[in-house]
């Protein structure tokens, strides 16, 4: 399964023409299933933080009656982090360049998220 997901992540990076700098698939307990991240990004820390942000965003949606959380975007001055659920057993966390085309990245992420769900359903 890990190999399948790693290939999905490589494809996601290739399709976004440098907009996506790194990507990780994280289990619901905050551990990393697979990743392709820049060397300077601590994989474990990134995964745990992504899970906390997504969990908190879920709580905010619930408290506000905002419906289901679709994605969370952190817009930093040097980089963006985009997080979305990939089914009940995983989340997809992406690091994108500050000038990344978010619309295009989101579209590719949604596609990848569906693929991750399919791969996980097989195992």
């Amino acid at each position, binding site marked *: 399964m890990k190999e399948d997901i790693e290939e999905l992540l490589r494809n996601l990076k290739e399709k976004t023409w440098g907009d996506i700098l790194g990507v990780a698939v994280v289990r619901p*307990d*905050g551990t990393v299933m697979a990743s392709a991240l820049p060397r300077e990004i601590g994989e474990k820390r990134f995964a745990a933080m992504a899970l906390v942000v997504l969990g908190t965003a879920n*709580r905010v949606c619930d408290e506000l009656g905002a419906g289901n959380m679709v994605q969370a975007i952190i817009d930093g001055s040097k980089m963006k982090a985009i997080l979305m659920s990939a089914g009940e057993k995983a989340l997809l966390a992406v690091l994108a360049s500050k000038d990344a085309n978010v619309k295009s990245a989101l579209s590719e992420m949604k596609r990848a998220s569906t693929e991750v769900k399919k791969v996980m359903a097989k195992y």
Partner: protein
Amino acid sequence: MKIVVFGALNAGKTTFLERASKKKLSVKGSYEGMTTSLDFTRLDYNGETVYLFTTPGHRRFDFMWEVLANGMRGAILLIDSTVGITEVDREIGGLIESKGVPYVVAVNKSDLANLSLDMVREGLGISAKVPVIPTSAICGNGVDEVLHRLMELKNERRGTE
């Protein structure tokens, strides 16, 4: 007023929150019983609104301890009496001490184990001024007392400020 419930993994923080607020949390920031973001509830204490937060207990999420400690006016440190004092407990105790807020130590799961309160005090290296109270969040024993003592401490401090 913001109060944060700290404690190691599986100490019973979320259950404590539910028992203290007398509300079942509809959505928990958790996976298989482990809090992975935060839990939050509100309660009324003698006309004062208390915002009660819990932290994730796993060391993987230790960055959240500091995040949630920001702006807190009081803290509760939950010890799992079936496990005893751990390095994580000591680390969290040090963090709470460094914030200078009133806090209470709740020795939880007292229905399952009888951990000596003196040993808890000694293990954490805390002064005699910090209340150490046995609790069982599952049964409800001691939970109201913890809140009551914490509010007393907060009011005493307010009186001296």
